[in-house]
């Protein structure tokens, strides 16, 4: 007679089935100097203010042109998830006092891409978070932590929003690189 580990409990709900999907934070994902350099580069590219107030109020650079940074972050994501991934979109958001980005402004994905959120902010901003919801329930909160990288698997029932930045901190500046990675086709994997 041999001993063996008991069988894993079968998932009993849809939430349990999907509970193991990637949602993690990597601290100190880049150096302070590199974060400052990226901020300067994006600033030079020129932010555009988004003003459909029922959806969001923030500044955005749609194509931040940071290929080396994206390559490094993608490599980190590949190492952490074991998936063969490649970036498909990237943008940088900047939120100041009074800014926010609501969930119904978010794009819902039919597949399961990986979203990266790199915190490029010069300093932490209390209460400035990214919340991920699955079927309306918050399952992951990304706090304000400069130089941290959040990796979150998206999906058909996942939405996110960026919380309101209080005017009580008049110098607050939240800068986030948001990138979407998708699995490489099999014939492009190394």
């Amino acid at each position, binding site marked *: 007679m041999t001993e063996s580990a008991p069988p894993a409990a079968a998932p009993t709900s849809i939430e349990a089935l999907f509970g193991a999907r990637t949602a993690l934070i990597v601290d100190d994902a880049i150096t302070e100097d590199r974060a400052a350099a990226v901020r300067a580069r994006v600033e030079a590219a020129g932010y555009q203010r988004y*003003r*459909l*107030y*029922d959806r969001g109020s923030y500044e955005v650079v749609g194509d931040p042109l940071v290929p080396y940074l994206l390559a490094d972050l993608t490599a980190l994501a590949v190492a952490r998830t074991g998936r063969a991934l490649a970036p498909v979109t990237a943008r940088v958001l900047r939120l100041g006092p*009074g800014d*926010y980005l*609501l*969930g119904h402004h978010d794009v819902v994905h039919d597949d399961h891409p990986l979203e990266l959120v790199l915190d490029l902010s010069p300093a932490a901003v209390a209460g400035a978070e990214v*919340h991920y919801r699955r079927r309306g329930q918050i399952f992951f909160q990304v706090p304000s932590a400069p130089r941290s990288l959040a990796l979150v698997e998206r999906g058909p029932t996942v939405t996110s*929003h960026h*919380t*309101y930045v*209080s*005017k*009580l901190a008049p110098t607050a500046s939240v800068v986030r690189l948001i990138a979407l990675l998708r699995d490489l086709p099999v014939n492009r994997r190394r």
Partner: protein
Amino acid sequence: MWRLPPSGLDEAALAAAWRAATPFPHLVLDDVIDPAALEALMAIVDDEPVERYQGEIFVFDATAPEPTTAAFRALRDDFAAALAPALTRITGKPVTRVDMRGFAYGPGHYLLPHTDHQVELGRALAYACYLPTPAPPVGGELELFRCVHDGEALTATEPALTIGPRANRLAVFDVSVVSLHQVREVLAGLRISLAGWFYP
């Protein structure tokens, strides 16, 4: 307790003001509560339990959606009985009943832009009645936005009007797909109000 129209105003003038208001129909009326009744009203509000409510677009302290004390329910029903007939004539929207909650916005509290419009809820008119406060708020204005549509698509929004939360002031506005509004963040002090919607 309630005075609509307030002294010096008539319904015809208010109806004209309602129709002419931009960015969408609204009224701002001062001194709608008899000053002699304010103390009793504040006592009723003070007795109603308050909890913190926090969501994607709001943080504030408020009473429950359904009042817990008989006095607060009576306050709500008296408000409806006193205002609904006049508001029906002024706005052209038939309203009969109302819901009411007490709200307390302290520093850092806000309600981000939204329209209140949800067909299934039947909200016809929204209102906020600002009450005296021991610390008049800095911020906390009701802000109305102008919406520009291209067919069904919303293509632009812009701040159009701010209404200060002056004590004994009633703000009433139309509820529709364009009634985009927010409560700006309170930066100091305390903003106390009764608010809710009128229904057919």
